[in-house]
């Protein structure tokens, strides 16, 4: 029971339940399963991105370039689709993941091999990748009418009552869950965040593991690039501008420690959902959209305060008396 209460994900689920309940008092339709599944679908891309960012943050790094990577890959696939409408979509998704992975690998390489701090590397590539998006497109937008019906339609297809976009999110969540809990790479990602020195002693190549973390976040950004463009049916240089901070905010709300080593797949997903619910609920409960920013800012601050309380090191208890009292 005690362990259950300490569990961050339980708290988040509780917070989300309360949030939904509060919204439902003002707009009963919000809590309807159909609507909740829409909210889930609307939040899918953010969840996917948050998972990619989580992997990087766990290793005591940060990837500020995810949104730019997304814009670049999105532009690439949109241009391919516009030029060769017959190009099969599954292959195109692979191209997106591949391009994203390459951009992520560039980040990872600079961190691993050159030894530049991740925040500096990705601050640089944040502008470079977005600039590159301009260069390859000449600044021109790719509009809905230039995209093939399959390109746009895939994520909107219904499968077992859910849009394919939701299935993308579910598949990513499952994949990440298995990776983080059951594979050597997943555990290494945690280990190097908890204690990089000890990781070296345990035979983990810290630099290479970070490199993989950036490759993962890059590949995820690539996948999200396709999903984003086909969802919002416009590819431009400004796509998802500034979105990197939303992704990080989702992770922070989800209890992923910026100091590395602490966090879970469930946390990242719930953190993203929390933001998604807020942004989709504001219009329906008739709160001016101008309040949204302040509300999510407050949510981030509250989450940070609560998480910090949870993480605060419990002092050692030397005194027998105190020990008895605490038990």
């Amino acid at each position, binding site marked *: 029971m005690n362990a259950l209460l300490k569990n961050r994900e339980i708290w988040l689920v509780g917070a989300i339940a309360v949030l939904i309940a509060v919204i439902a008092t003002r*707009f009963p*339709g919000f809590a309807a399963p159909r*609507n909740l599944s829409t909210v889930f679908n*609307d939040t899918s891309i953010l969840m996917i991105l948050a998972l990619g960012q989580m992997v990087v943050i766990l290793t005591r790094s940060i990837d500020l370039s995810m949104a730019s990577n997304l814009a670049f890959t999105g532009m690439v696939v949109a241009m391919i689709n516009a030029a060769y409408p017959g190009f099969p979509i599954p292959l195109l998704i692979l191209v997106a993941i591949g391009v994203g992975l390459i951009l992520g690998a560039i980040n990872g390489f600079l961190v691993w091999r050159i030894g530049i701090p991740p925040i500096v590397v990705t601050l640089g590539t944040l502008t470079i990748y977005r600039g590159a998006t*301009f260069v390859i*497109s000449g*600044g*021109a*937008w790719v*509009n*809905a*009418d230039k995209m093939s019906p399959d390109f746009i339609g895939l994520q*909107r297809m219904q499968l077992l009552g859910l849009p394919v976009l939701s299935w993308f999110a579910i598949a990513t969540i499952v994949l990440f869950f298995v990776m983080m809990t059951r594979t050597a790479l997943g555990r290494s990602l945690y280990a190097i965040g908890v204690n990089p020195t000890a990781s070296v002693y345990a035979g983990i190549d810290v630099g290479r593991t970070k490199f993989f973390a950036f490759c993962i976040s890059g590949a995820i950004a690539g996948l999200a690039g396709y999903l*984003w463009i086909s*969802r*919002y*049916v*416009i590819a*431009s*240089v*400004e*796509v*998802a*501008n500034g979105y990197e901070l939303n992704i990080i905010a989702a992770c922070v709300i989800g209890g992923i420690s910026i100091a590395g080593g602490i966090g879970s797949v469930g946390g990242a997903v719930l953190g993203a959902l929390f933001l998604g619910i807020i*942004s*989709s609920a*504001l*219009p*329906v409960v*008739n709160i001016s*959209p101008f309040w949204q920013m302040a509300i999510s800012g407050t949510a981030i601050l509250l989450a940070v305060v609560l998480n910090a309380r949870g993480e605060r090191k419990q002092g050692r208890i030397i005194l027998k008396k105190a020990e008895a009292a605490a038990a």
Partner: protein
Amino acid sequence: ADAKIALVVKSLGNGFFDAAHKGALEAAKELGGVEIIYTGPTKATAEAQIEVVNSLIAQKVDAIAISANDADALVPVLKKAMDRGITVISWDSGVAAEGRQLHLNPSDTDLIGETIIKLAADHLPDGGDVAILSAASTATNQNAWIDAAKKALPEKFKNINLVSVVYGDDDSAKSTDEAKGLLKSYPNLKAIIAPTTVGVVAAAQVVTDENLIGKVNVTGLALPSEFKKFIDNGASQGVALWNPIDLGYSAVYLAYDLAVKKEEAKPGAKLSIGRVGEITLDDTNSAPMAAPFTFDKSNIEEFSKIY
């Protein structure tokens, strides 16, 4: 070249402005000896546009024709440009009167305001709820049109009920979220009016995705080439716009009139704009170009090939 004229747009990459650029080049060729600098920020903010204007001042261009991201914030830098002897006019999205010599409205503001409501009302014989999805909350021209629309409502469209105005910031993701929010909050919504080319596409895509074609009509201002799809699939019964090519053409012509031919921009002045004709400045030194033109199933095919 005898004259360097800078065509400064809100943001690069927008199909509407690319079309205006085409018109500008056409005008330059016609006038002869005119070099067009087509520029603007990639992100539609006033600060970025100010840096662009600063570099144009340094290049000692002869004239700046700007579609502004903010009516007020650009005034100081444009004043500086005028102080250094550069002709400044605004077009499409204007700046406050003290920041330019004249403003070329794509059309009459009141007329546009009325048209965007009319586009929705024409298909709502029994009236109903409509909402507006605008661009950035700072966009000068959109705000003026919305004000005009609000003014026209009680006078001419008594049974149309404007329930909300939301802003998509000309960002497709934000516009999509806002359009979805509108549909959720107002289940009886009959039309979304988006007087911006990014917003209108996003709204039409949302209506298509949510299977509301036939229930919710998306209308507003759209570039035919970008919007054809949604006229075809029925998400929209029709949209309006003016000719962006003519707009770019006229902007350059007017800039040339003032900068090279040394015409004076003052209330009542008549200025020629080549093949488009002639305009007369009102007492704020602005003039409309032409009435907005409506695109629907009957003519979209033809115009989508042009712009």
